[in-house]
């Protein structure tokens, strides 16, 4: 019996290398989950507002028709591209476009990080 107990005591399993990191990232997710969600919700609201603003400008100024006309006259040249961009910027301010793009990227990044940590968490 003593031999059996000694063998029982000897059984030692090596802890997986990534376990420590897994636990820490699970904890990180638990601690910051709320802030991530608040950030994503605020950015979503912001995105809705910007999108609505851009859409109302597009409708108001008939930008879609202008774009459609320009595409019909499509020409792969620097002059055409420059003219196209200048026309768009006449109706849609650059700051608005940049805000929209940045919003989309930051939100996408937050969602990516959120799910990355969620994947490592069992809770």
């Amino acid at each position, binding site marked *: 019996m003593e031999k059996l107990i000694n*063998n029982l005591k000897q*059984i030692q399993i090596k802890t997986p290398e990534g376990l420590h990191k897994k*636990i820490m990232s699970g904890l990180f997710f638990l601690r910051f989950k709320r802030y991530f969600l608040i950030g994503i919700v605020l950015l979503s609201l912001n995105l809705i507002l910007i999108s609505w603003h851009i859409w109302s400008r597009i409708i108001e100024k008939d930008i879609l028709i202008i774009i459609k006309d320009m595409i019909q006259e499509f020409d792969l040249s620097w002059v055409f591209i420059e003219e196209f961009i200048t026309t768009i910027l006449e109706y849609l301010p650059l700051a608005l476009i940049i805000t929209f793009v940045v919003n989309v990227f930051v939100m996408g990044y937050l969602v990516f990080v959120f799910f990355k940590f969620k994947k490592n968490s069992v809770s």
Partner: protein
Amino acid sequence: MKEKSEEEKILLSLKNGNLAAFEKILLLYEDRIFNYIYHLVGQKQDAEDLTQETFIKLYTHIKTIDINKNFLVWLYKIATNTVYDFWRRKKNKKEILLDELQNLETIETETTYLNIEKQEVVRDVQNALAKIKPIYRTVLLLFYKNNFTYKEIAETLNLPLNTVKIYIHRAKKELKEKLKNGKTY
């Protein structure tokens, strides 16, 4: 005594939400808890997930801990309850048995550091351990592998002291029988 007061300092710091203190506790106990859970569930992936769940529970319930009481008992209590909840979630008992049988193959790769003869003996003990009742497995692991006293086991498992003594006696008997039936030891 010095070690104890050091642990108390870390626990106090952890109670205040210090993440570095949590990592210290994790470094101190993750191996022991992983080994304990692994021997209970017999599956590496499940053991990893349950170890993570145990430490997350430790962090979320740290405010309720009484640092004057035995921290290790408290930690093992969380680990044991986490494993028992996991078993409860696995409704079908057949599934547990199947997992344990699959485990027979994984043990060999885990113990490559031992020589072949010893590996076989250890594997037989491990296999027999997987076949005894979960509560017997739990008391044996706590008593022999984690050097818990009867009183500590009783506290961890919420059992009367005499019941623990009886369980250990029966567990040893059952383990021996399983080994004999396996005819490999």
